């Protein structure tokens, strides 16, 4: 079966991570990224197959970059795919995102610990 020669054998593949029934989101940002995606889809900004394709692409790209892809980086790929898709659909530009990210960074550095971080109005 020459077609299968380049695929790893089961023994060469890394072990699966195991988990108990943990929380569905490890950190709040994962939940936010998830919810934005569902909402934009429900509002008709993209189809679910379009989304699944971008997510698959993001996962494949991360793997090619050396991500062991053990499930714990899943929402990072998710976020990457969402940023790609909103730019592709013309909802936002990559520049918008970078500028706004820098504004949040400045705001977080200007905020004393324990207080809510807010953007100045001109951000």
């Amino acid at each position, binding site marked *: 079966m020459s077609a299968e020669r380049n695929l*790893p*054998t*089961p023994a060469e*593949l*890394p*072990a*699966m*991570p*195991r*988990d108990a*029934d*943990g*929380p*569905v*989101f490890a950190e709040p*940002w994962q*939940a*936010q990224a*998830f*919810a*934005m995606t*569902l*909402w*934009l*889809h*429900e509002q008709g900004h993209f189809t*679910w*197959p379009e*989304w*699944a394709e971008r*997510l*698959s692409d993001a996962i494949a790209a991360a*793997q090619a970059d050396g991500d062991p892809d*053990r*499930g*714990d980086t*899943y929402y*990072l790929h998710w*976020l990457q795919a*969402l*940023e790609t898709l*909103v730019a592709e659909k013309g*909802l*936002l530009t990559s520049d*918008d*995102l*970078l500028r*706004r*990210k820098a504004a*949040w*960074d400045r705001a*977080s*550095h*200007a*905020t*004393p*610990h324990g*207080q809510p*971080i807010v*953007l100045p109005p001109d951000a």
Partner: protein
Amino acid sequence: MTDHADHSHLSDTELRVRALESLLADKGLVDPAALDAIVDTYENKVGPRNGARVVARAWIDPEFKQWLLRDGTAAIDSLGYTSTQGADIVVLENTPAVHNLTVCTLCSCYPWAVLGLPPAWYKSFPYRSRAVRDPRGVLREFGQDIGDDVEVRVWDSTAEVRYLVLPERPPGTAGLAEDELAELVTRNSMIGTDRLSEVKKNQ
């Protein structure tokens, strides 16, 4: 670095998410309250218990079971567990002769409406790749030794079709009510990495 302990710190990832959400909100494309409602739903209201209730109903109601196997999407919808992603749910019946295992090799398509969000191992490359190449080996790692006389079928989910395994009803449960039966159904038994009869014996 000008980092000080006395100011707040957001990780690079948190900054990206905040940038995305605040820009989308400014443009009226997302409503923060609606996002909170989605998160609450998936964290607290949807979970494998929905799927467990579907399975328990199928065990006690042969007509519902036939409907479920014929048109999973409609039968599940009748119980109020509707997918908003527009994917059809196909229900796969485990029998003494056939064991079904589900996977999404490309990403992590999963029947959220009935199982909630997937566990980390389901999203991992090792599971996604090995479930197809070596399903019996994967099942052994989950403590399930599937005999050679049982056919193992692997189903690869897509954005359009998700799969839900209908596990075999465990022996010794003839007198149980629907709610009690639902308690016996594990998430993994509906993904196909678990068999309920085995779980009972090992306990």
